């Protein structure tokens, strides 16, 4: 069955893919050879800074999560890049579904920054945080669709109430993961696997590791998929907070 790849034509997506590759290298850099401020170097190396900042905005909290997971929070130059990206591409106002998506993403970004000791209260363009009441009740399909787009919020510093809501719907998240795999929605599947990896109960869920293994094989050509898988692995091996 032919699958139509979901892509957004233009100049930003290549930058997003390139940044995801860079972050994947940073995630695998156990000894810290990559050094700090890799976001600053990435955006500077891009031919157009606004395009580099666009990539930073699209990946959201994931631009900081790899270094934070390695215990080496972003430096001042990287923070300045993230702040510039937020200002250049401000979150939409209102209470639409799209605006809510940005709210949750920005809350996840802010929590990583705050955990590293950064004060984000004066950041222009950052959406105000919201409670996880936005998560759809009942049907598993809308829930899985929303969570797959919010994979960047699945990190150890995520809002406790959000994590509890997701934990209460683990079976539905797993359903969404199985469906995404069947539909070859690799990025969506990787995002849902990451949510399951975040608060994995133990070895009673062999599906997560199997799914990640499969995604790492079939998603070889997509750095965003591999980045999600890499972070998910780190979340599973990380000691509970």
């Amino acid at each position, binding site marked *: 069955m032919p699958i139509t790849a979901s892509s957004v034509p233009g100049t930003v997506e290549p930058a997003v893919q390139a940044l995801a590759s860079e972050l994947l290298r940073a995630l695998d850099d156990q000894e810290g050879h990559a050094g700090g401020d890799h976001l600053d170097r990435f955006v500077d190396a891009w031919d157009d800074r*606004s395009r580099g900042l666009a990539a930073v905005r699209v990946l959201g909290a994931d631009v900081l999560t790899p270094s934070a997971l390695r215990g080496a929070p972003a430096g001042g130059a990287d923070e300045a890049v993230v*702040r510039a990206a937020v200002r250049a*591409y401000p979150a939409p106002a209102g209470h639409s579904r799209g605006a809510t998506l940005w709210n949750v993403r920005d809350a996840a970004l802010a929590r990583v920054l705050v955990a590293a000791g950064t004060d984000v209260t004066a950041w222009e363009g950052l959406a105000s945080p919201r409670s996880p009441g936005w998560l759809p009740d009942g049907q598993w399909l809308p829930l899985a669709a929303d969570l797959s787009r919010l994979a960047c919020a699945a990190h150890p510093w995520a809002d406790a109430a959000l994590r509890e809501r997701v934990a209460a719907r683990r079976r539905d998240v797993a359903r969404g993961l199985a469906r995404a795999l069947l539909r070859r929605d690799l990025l969506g599947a990787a995002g849902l696997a990451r949510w399951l990896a975040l608060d994995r109960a133990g070895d009673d869920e062999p599906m997560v590791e199997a799914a990640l293994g499969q995604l790492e094989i079939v998603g070889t050509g997509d750095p965003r998929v591999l980045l999600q898988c890499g972070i998910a692995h780190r979340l599973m091996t990380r000691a509970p907070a």
Partner: protein
Amino acid sequence: MSAQTMAYAYEAPTTQEKDQVHALIGQQEPHSGLEHSPRAGILILLLVLSADPIGEEPVEDAFDGMIQKLAHAAAV
């Protein structure tokens, strides 16, 4: 036009770049196209039925459950 954030200077993004950022953040799952083409689903269903599944195997389980997959794809 240029903007300044702390010590970080950048050119103001274009409308196209802003639109792309919004599209990428709200990116939906890829689709097979089948769910938007009921006729294609019906055609495949007829082809499967005309293939005369073997023995007493329920038709919905034939060919690795293809009909179930089609029904699911059409339903969602």
